[in-house]
């Protein structure tokens, strides 16, 4: 049997150990090279380290006890405030998963500081009881990226000049401006002309991408009938599908589906998804396109019975210049830019893109976009979530 003094001693020891552990954890938190902020389950800040205070230009007094999205304001590339529902911290709470992404913070020194954030929810019995966010200033990486995009943009602009001359003179040759061609010569010319078209497409895509990446993309939302957009693009691809003996079916709502979005961007997304489906589906396959409303979003679904995406390639499908291993041997032409572009567009208009796929069975791509360009009610929804 323990006597009282032993019990007391043990209690003292364990208190000491707890205090030491706490001090260690605090020292660890404080001395981290990354900014670190801990919040409770409502998103209220209860700890913030020096690095975070330095980056944000805050004092501990100003930050503690405040609601995280209020005190740490995130903005988009276009410098509009990111609604709380779209913040990684909220998404981490909602999904119970760690979320990492690039964003911009409005700090004292910089109205749009590029940062990389990682938010991990702290879970107890599967329920979030708080979250820890770490973040770092990525100004330098950002500058390198920007320079890369600008380089691509300049290079593409420079490539267009000789390409215009190549195009004009090749077409003149083909059309007989320099005399009639033999059949074989015409065949060769056709290959040259086709390659010029591909080169044109590639340059256009590179220019579009660098424009989005450097924040020069102009988004012009207007009220448009999504059905009409799908119909017009499908028509453009009809012949290609017929040539490849692919059955193309379209299932659209019977009424016009009006949404507020930039029609050019919607067209770009759908053309990319549909042309990929046709390109990566072998002859006699089927492609189905469907459009449906789901809550406040419209979801575009493009399914095919094509080659599918191998499991090991799936996590990279939206990376720049990435092409899945299985299609590289089947389809030689592809830039690995289409889906990257779709993802960029989705990000810039508040949409989402995702897919399901099985190799040798087919793929289904989904693209969801809000019916209205911005919806303030969404941010109140998350306010409600955080208050409960």
């Amino acid at each position, binding site marked *: 049997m323990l006597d009282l003094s032993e019990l007391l001693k043990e209690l003292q020891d364990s208190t000491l150990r707890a205090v030491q552990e706490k001090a260690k954890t605090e020292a660890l938190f404080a001395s981290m090279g990354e900014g670190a902020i801990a919040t409770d389950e409502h998103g209220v800040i209860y700890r913030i380290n020096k690095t975070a205070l330095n980056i944000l230009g805050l004092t501990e007094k100003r930050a503690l006890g405040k609601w995280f999205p209020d005190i740490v304001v995130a903005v988009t590339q276009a410098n509009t405030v990111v609604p709380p529902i779209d913040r990684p911290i909220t998404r981490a709470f909602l999904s119970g998963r760690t979320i990492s992404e690039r964003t911009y913070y409005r700090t004292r020194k910089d109205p749009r500081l590029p940062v990389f954030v990682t938010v991990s929810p702290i879970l107890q019995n599967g329920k979030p009881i708080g979250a820890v966010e770490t973040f770092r200033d990525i100004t330098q990486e950002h500058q390198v990226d920007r320079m890369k995009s600008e380089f691509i943009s300049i290079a*593409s*602009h420079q490539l*267009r*000049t000789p*390409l*215009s*001359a190549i*195009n*004009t*003179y090749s*077409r*003149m040759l083909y*059309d007989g*401006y320099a005399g009639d061609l033999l059949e074989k010569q015409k065949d060769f010319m056709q290959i040259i002309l086709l390659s*010029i*078209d591909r080169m*044109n497409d590639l*340059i*256009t895509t590179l*220019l579009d991408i660098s*424009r989005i990446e450097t924040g020069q993309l102009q988004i012009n939302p207007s009220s448009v009938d999504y059905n009409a957009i799908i119909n017009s693009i499908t028509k453009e691809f009809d012949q290609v599908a017929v040539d490849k003996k692919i059955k193309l079916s379209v299932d659209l709502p019977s009424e016009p589906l009006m949404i507020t979005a930039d029609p050019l961007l919607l067209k770009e997304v759908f053309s990319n998804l549909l042309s990929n489906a046709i390109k990566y589906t072998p002859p006699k396959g089927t492609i189905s396109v469907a459009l449906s409303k789901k809550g406040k979003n419209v979801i575009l679904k493009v399914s095919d019975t094509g080659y599918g995406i191998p499991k090991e390639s799936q996590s990279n499908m939206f990376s720049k210049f990435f092409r899945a291993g299985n299609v590289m041997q089947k389809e030689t032409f592809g830039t690995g830019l289409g889906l990257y572009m779709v993802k960029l567009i989705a990000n810039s208009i508040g949409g989402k893109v995702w897919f399901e796929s099985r190799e040798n069975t087919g793929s289904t791509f989904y693209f969801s976009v809000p019916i209205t360009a911005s919806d303030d009610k969404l941010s109140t929804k998350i306010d409600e979530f955080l208050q409960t």
Partner: protein
Amino acid sequence: MAKILIIEDDKLLSDAYKLILEKHGHKVVVAHNGKKGLEKAALHKPKIILLDLLMPEMDGIEFLEAYRSKNSLKGVAIVVLSNLGDEKKVEKAIKLGAYKYIVKAHAKPDELSLIVNHLVGKDLARTRK
């Protein structure tokens, strides 16, 4: 047949367009920048102007502004020769009264002459009130 002024700084391209249009029986004058373009426009009074946008000395937009300040666009059609990625400039040119545009990297000889023939056949004075 019409009198056409090509304003394009890339000599390879202006040579090609000249060849195509002359083959279709048009009379063609060439200038390699906007400034020379203005001089030749005053001298030759072309019915159709093919106008490049990016040029040294005076670019296409500056040419349009200067041309409009001295001439009426009645009976004259200005066709913009644009490059991939020039959409904003094309938009501005159209606002300034350009009639149509051709993307140089896609242009087909027959298309070029078709556009010109179409413009010649059209009573421009009547369509441009």
